[in-house]
């Protein structure tokens, strides 16, 4: 091997490891949710997402799965089982063996598996301690940290990811949609007295035990935004409760989580205690829809959650065209147009269809 061919080979290898260095792009510098400065030579093109809900946010900002090279096994199963799997069939080839346990539990990274994917950006949780972050930074991987919880943090995540992958227009559009929807709902609720706000109970668990969302949760945020009162406001965060406590709150509306796949609204209607609450008697028990991600936690689709809930809580004040919003925004977010059947699936029409006021979400 001559010196020149060796040099060419080394250069080629260097080019692979440094990414496509020939492409000229401006460096990106921003601050992550932990206040750390993140600097990239150019917008990220090989991204590993360790936090679960945000992989779909990257897909939405990017409009493609091409730049997502690794994600949490549970993100992957959530994508494969729902509509994003139908939109992006190639997502099944994205690596998901990036968790240290080898399985799907926890967020401790498998640094070697991640390094082998040659990512230019690794996104990790920033509120679960240094132990799940240090292995990544010690390995020299560029890491951005995000935190879970409030609407403010949800927006910061979208801004951070949008900046790092170089989609400032898309992120502005998504943020503007949130502002716009919030303003519309607030305008619609103008002058509404507290007595006219239905009490709403969100159950994060209901299949075997009951777990309610109290003050400070994201569910509490959008219940209030949509013109409801959180029935479990006296709780802080997510807490186990008993059926008698639910009876004592006697909520007007019950929202069932979208996480427990076998959980059906009949769980409430058939229960002798829960079935005697105002919510069950007036048929206002709904299971949270599932779109690009479940509508329960914050995501790029949150404005749809808010419109859906505001319509159900105040059918006389709001007349959002949810199906139209889904069609319009899925084209912008994912570049895809869902069919009527797919929208039915997102809104869980087969289960929620019998609930009060759900007829306005049905196809004409």
């Amino acid at each position, binding site marked *: 091997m001559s010196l020149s061919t060796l040099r060419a080979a080394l250069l080629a290898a260097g080019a692979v490891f440094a990414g496509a260095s020939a492409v000229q792009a401006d460096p990106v510098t921003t601050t992550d949710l932990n206040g750390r400065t993140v600097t990239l030579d150019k917008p990220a093109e090989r991204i590993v997402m360790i936090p679960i809900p945000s992989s779909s946010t990257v897909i939405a900002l990017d409009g493609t799965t091409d730049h997502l090279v690794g994600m949490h096994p549970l993100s992957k199963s959530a994508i494969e089982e729902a509509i994003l799997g139908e939109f992006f069939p190639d997502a099944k080839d994205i690596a998901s063996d990036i968790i240290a346990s080898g*399985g*799907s*539990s926890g967020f401790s990274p498998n640094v070697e598996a991640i390094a082998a994917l040659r990512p230019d950006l690794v996104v990790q949780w920033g509120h679960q301690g240094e132990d799940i972050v240090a292995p990544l930074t010690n390995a020299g991987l560029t890491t951005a940290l995000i935190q879970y919880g409030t609407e403010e943090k949800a927006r910061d995540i979208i801004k951070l990811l949008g900046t790092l992958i170089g989609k400032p227009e898309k992120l502005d559009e998504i943020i503007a949609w949130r502002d716009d929807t919030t303003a519309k709902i607030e305008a619609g609720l103008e002058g509404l007295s507290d007595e006219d706000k239905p009490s709403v109970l969100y159950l994060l668990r209901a299949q075997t035990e009951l*777990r309610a969302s109290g003050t400070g949760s994201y569910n509490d945020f959008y219940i209030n935004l949509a013109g409801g009162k959180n029935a479990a406001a006296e*709780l802080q965060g997510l807490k186990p*409760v008993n059926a008698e406590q639910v009876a004592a709150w006697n909520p007007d509306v019950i929202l069932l989580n979208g996480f427990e796949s076998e959980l059906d609204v009949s769980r409430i209607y058939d229960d002798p205690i829960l079935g005697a609450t105002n919510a069950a008697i007036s048929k206002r028990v709904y299971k949270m829809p599932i779109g690009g991600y479940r509508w329960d936690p914050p995501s790029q689709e949150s404005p749809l959650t808010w419109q859906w809930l505001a319509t159900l809580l105040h059918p006389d004040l709001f007349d959002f065209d949810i199906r139209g919003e889904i069609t319009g925004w899925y084209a912008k977010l994912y570049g895809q147009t869902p069919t009527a059947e797919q929208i039915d699936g997102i809104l869980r029409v087969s289960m929620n269809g019998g609930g009060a006021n759900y007829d306005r979400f049905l196809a004409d």
Partner: protein
Amino acid sequence: MSDTAIHARGQSLPARGSGAVWLAAFGGLLIVAMLVSLGLGRLSIPLPTVAAIVGHLALPVPESWTVLEERVVLLVREPRVLLAALSGAGLAMCGAALQGIFRNPLVSPQILGISPGAAFGGALAILLGHAGVVLIGSSFVFGVAALVTVGLIARIDGRTETATIVLAGIIVGALFSALVSLLQFVADPDSSLPAIVGWLMGSFASATWPRLALAAPAILIGVIGLFFLRFRVNVLSLGDDEARSFGVSVERDRWIFFILVALTTGAVVSVAGVIGWVGLVVPHAARLLVGEDHRILVPASGLLGGAYLVTVDTISRTATAAEIPLSVLTAIIGAPVFAILLRHSWRKEHAR
């Protein structure tokens, strides 16, 4: 460690009369605890209404309450109070019998590996998508398996030292705890994992009549069996050689007790998760009051244990809007009580 046994023999057994008085007192305590618990809850229902709801099943009382109130009292509180009473009685009687048989004040169903074993059995059933009978059966089988393993490890050259039993129990308990962690590790974080975690924490929140009907027979067999065999605890507590000189088949009797204890503990764990401390602390408290005679001590522990767990469960479901896990409360209340008892009995022994 045969201090307890020596004292058992050294101490004159209490007169049967005083034993009966204690049993009546504990029985009264249990009934009061159950009635108070029935009257308390997050849904405030006036006491006369509660009494009327319970009474109208047998007496002609005019109905002046809502459907919801009736359902809460009859379908939520009643089965829950009964299950707590039965579980407390079962666990405490198991503890009293085991402490006598092993002549060791430290043993309890938890230390002998039965609870961790039953916890593994239950977690395995949940992971495989089972509930009800399979869950109870699996808890029971693995509870017995854990106990048998402890027995086999501790039996060296045909002798079973109490210290080796406790150590073997810790070993087997640690093994099954690790296996439970392994199950949690492979469980689906969105469905079976929260179910396993919630169940392991211990709660009567899901008590219903069908659940009570499922668990009650097994617990009752254990409770009744332990009650009728309570005099044999006295014999076994004399030690193997002396018990044999009475013509007792020590090994066989011991196994009968083990099976009764595993049945009771497995059933309790299967419906309410692992509830610590009741089987350890309640027999000690009862022993201080009624003495060492297991003919009195075993039923006294049962009544006191029932009253204790009903009270703790009442606090768990009424203190805050959120359910407080039972094991947390039993330990927070149990640990200081145990510490006081320990100092008390130590001082008494050394004063002699």
